[in-house]
């Protein structure tokens, strides 16, 4: 049952990304181009997504188990540290060089775009590099429960 719900949630998520135009990098860059012709569409995507998820998440925060009896696994970290800010900073630069973030990149993979394949391979490379750098600092498994 949990496998089915995971598959359905993923399918719905991908369909939402396609419908919203998140998979169109020109549109993403149009939103991020504050100084030029600004396309506010993505602000609406975020607002609608957050508006929809607000109540279910506030319910989930108060539960120990999910409806399908899985442990509620919400991130517990609270501190605002250099890793969070530095990482997000780098992510923002990468996002806006190409106009692609991880969800849309995966969604486009089977849509027949070679650009998406290159991006995903490089992204996996970046994640792998993170693993290597982390291993040199502290033993595995660090940063568990991250999103």
């Amino acid at each position: 049952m949990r496998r089915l719900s995971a598959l359905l949630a993923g399918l719905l998520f991908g369909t939402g990304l396609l419908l919203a135009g998140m998979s169109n990098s020109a549109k993403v860059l149009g939103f991020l181009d504050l100084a030029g012709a600004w396309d506010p569409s993505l602000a609406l995507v975020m607002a609608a997504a957050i508006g929809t998820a607000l109540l279910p998440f506030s319910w989930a925060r108060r539960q120990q188990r999910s409806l399908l009896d899985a442990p509620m696994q919400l991130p517990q970290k609270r501190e605002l540290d250099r890793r969070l800010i530095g990482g997000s900073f780098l992510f923002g630069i990468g996002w806006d060089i190409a106009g692609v973030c991880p969800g849309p990149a995966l969604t486009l993979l089977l849509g027949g775009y070679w650009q998406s394949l290159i991006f995903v391979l490089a992204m996996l490379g970046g994640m792998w590099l993170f693993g290597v750098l982390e291993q040199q600092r502290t033993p595995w498994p660090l940063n568990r429960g991250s999103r």
Partner: protein
Amino acid sequence: MYIDWVHFTPGPALAGGVLIGLAASLFVVLNGRIAGISGLLGSLLQGNADGRDEKALFLLGLLAAPLLWGLFGTLPEAEFQTGWPGLVIAGLLVGLGTRYGSGCTSGHGVCGISRLSPRSMAATLTFMASGFATVFVLRHLWGG
């Protein structure tokens, strides 16, 4: 700055946003998990045994979305504006950045803000700001 009314698509943006929010809600309410794409991918890459099937199936659903869409209509356009060198640099930065920042647009932006997490709000403000700055530099200072 002026609003680009030609490309503004409030209808699909709102509908797509509702679907994204619904999907994230289903995943947390039914599976107790955060629908953060970079986090799911990263933890699979790291070989975390915990919930591997569910995480993989969520991502599989994401991959299958355009195939399902294709059964009913033509896929929406995706215009890439970057050649392969740009895509490689962007991908590397996104992979590295989302792991250090433990999240991306979906994990921090959608799920984190919906949880009212201060960490996620700070992360979202940061990547939005560095995004605005990057586009400004690339389009208006560098590219002209």
